[in-house]
């Protein structure tokens, strides 16, 4: 049993646990914490898969920036308390449960059918060198073959900035009472 397996089992459990927390927690703050747990677990798994740079970004961007933003908003709009999680839409849980059941059932069926290969294009065992996600390796790729995509993220951020401004910054006149 290699180290990777150990890491996978441990982190897998925490990741799933975090995810379940996100969905089940009555308090949005706990959901946020759960999400944070999942992200950190995934970061560890990334490291185990030699994706150092991605793991770092995962922690910086997700755990750092994104989650902070989430928690900030939670606090800002004051939903940091337990809420009623009972279902008010008729049949919603039934439907979702059914869908989940079908999905899981189909997944298990696939697992036993042995006709499903997750990475059929893989030619053999992973070669550590080729996917060692150092900053340099990733950077070369990012600024080489992926340069246009990288530039497009600039557009994305412009959109985010302009959108955020448009949505939140200006206040128009008093709301019309309808």
């Amino acid at each position, binding site marked *: 049993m290699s180290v990777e397996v150990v890491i996978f089992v441990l982190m897998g459990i925490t990741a799933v646990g975090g995810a379940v927390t996100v969905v089940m927690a009555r308090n949005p703050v706990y959901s946020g914490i759960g999400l944070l747990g999942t992200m950190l677990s995934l970061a560890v798994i990334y490291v185990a898969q030699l994706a150092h740079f991605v793991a770092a970004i995962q922690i910086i961007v997700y755990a750092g920036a994104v989650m902070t933003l989430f928690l900030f908003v939670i606090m800002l709009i004051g939903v940091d308390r337990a809420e009623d999680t009972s279902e008010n*839409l008729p049949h*919603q849980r039934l*439907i*979702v449960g059914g*869908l989940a059941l*079908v*999905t899981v059932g*189909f997944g298990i069926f*696939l697992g036993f*059918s042995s*006709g*499903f290969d997750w990475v059929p294009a893989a030619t053999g065992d992973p070669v550590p060198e080729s996917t060692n996600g150092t900053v340099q390796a990733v950077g070369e790729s990012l600024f080489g073959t992926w340069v246009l995509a990288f530039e497009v993220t600039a557009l994305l951020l412009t959109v985010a900035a302009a959108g955020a401004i448009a949505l939140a910054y200006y206040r128009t006149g008093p709301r019309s009472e309808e």
Partner: protein
Amino acid sequence: MTDLLWLVIALPLAGAFVLHFFGRYLREPLSGWLATGAIAAAFVVSAVAAVPFFQGGDVEAEQIAIWEWMPAIGANFELQWDPLSALMALVVTGVGSLIHLFAIGYMHGDERFHRFFTYLNLFAASMLTLVLAGNYGMLFVGWELVGLCSYLLVGFWYTRPTAAAAAKKAFVVNRIGDFGFLIGLMVVFATFGTMSYTGIFERVGSELTTGAATAIGLLFLVGAAGKSAQVPLYVWLPDAMEGPTPVSALIHAATMVTAGVYVVARSAPIYAEAPIASGAVAVIGAITAIWAASIAIAQSDIKRVLAYSTVSQLGYMFMGVGATAYVAGVFHLMTHAFFKALLFLGAGSVIHAMSDEQDMHKMGGLRRRMPVTAATMGIATLAIAGIPPLAGFWSKDEILGSLFERGGMYAALWIVGLVTALMTAFYMARQWVLVFWGEPRWEEGVEPHESPRVMTLPLIVLAVLSIVAGFVNTPLRFTLEHFLEPAFEGVSLQHPPEGWGMFLLLAGLSTLAGVAGVAAAWLAYNRPPQAWRRFQDGFGRLWTAWENAYWVDDLYATTIVGPGRRGAELAAFQVDAGGIDGAVNGVGWLFQRVGQSLRGLQTGYVRNYGAGFAAGLLVVAIWLVARGI
């Protein structure tokens, strides 16, 4: 001369045309004279064209093409000129001219005077088209056009609801007959590939099976029964008396109603191949003859008596042509045209004089006020009663003789004919007596007077004809028979028995019937009203049945018209509006309903949408993945 034969049709047609468009600019009598002139000219033309036939000898029938109409089915405008059509044309134009003349007086003062003559002329043209047609297609043109004119003229006084209804009834019942006639035409075309007389009669021997011939014969009989008012389609004719009396004389006595007889005579070569159809014609004729005669006995309306009499006499003609005694049938057609036209015109004269009174119970004693009318009508009455030597005697006797000679079933028909003759004599004499004899029973303020010359002149001419016309075909001299022979070439004609003995016996019998009828009527009716009422009561319920024409109209109303209308209403309002259209609208409604219920899926809750999305996703995913394993 036959080159100009088309003028026979064209002249009255032109008259109608001119009158239609310019009639309103003509002063009253002028339009009448114009119309009369047009048909008189047609008479002259046809008389001149018929000269070769009178001269005798081997005169071939002629076909004169005018123009192609529907060549695909061999129906073109072409004229047939043979003795039969010549005779018919002469009768139509001759009697027609006299009736036109009469109408100038009769219609005096009517606000649509010129319109009346338009229609009369149009009728004459149509009837001439019918009789001169060289093929069944064109014959049918005339056949229908006379129906149209009948419709127009019966409904001439359209503000009377009864007149309008009668006009419609006449046309519709005729159409029912046409139903058969049209199918007959289809069979003719399907059998021969043409509709022209010559084409058909050439091929009768080779192409025609008995089955087809019988079919054609029976189908033509249906049409003829409609047009010639035979049982069971005669019901329109009594109602058609709503029209002005000259119309009744011209259309419903002398000409149009004889078209059925003409068609059967014209189709003699076909009937010759179909004894069953021939027999059917005769039987129908016999039933009609006695049936209508019995009704006529009890009628009180002067024109209705004549109407039922016409029906009855047409039945006679049918008996004649049905027994293949075509000459006899046509002979009776001709004489009947004279005396029945005379009777109608006389009746018109009476009605005219009595200020439109038609009930004979309110007449009586008119002979002193209207001597000419009384005399001429008396002649006509004797003629139709079959009193020798008037015209009716000869023609009727020839039919009866032929029936007797034919024997078998036809002998039974002969007895029917004899009884009918008795009844005919009775009811005609009854009419004459009721109208002209006895004491006046006029309503207050009615001042009868003799009709003007323009009306009496035709009466006199027709009276003369009613006397002499019988002599064209007597056992002494079969002039008409020889005249018509070329038209019935190749058809074996039925004749009365040979020899004077038989003739005298049969003639004696029928004369006896006639005399007996006249005498009975005289005895019964030349008495005060109470007396003849008692006489009538002696017949009990039978008289009521006759008076009400055996309630046939009611029967038709309850068995055909009523259910038909209810059926139509069912179809229109239940089946069509409810069922078929309901189904169509139901589809629309269904779409709306489905749409409305699907709208329920769009709840507005984003999580519901998500679930729908996920469900769709799952289906697609499973579907695709399942294809990969």
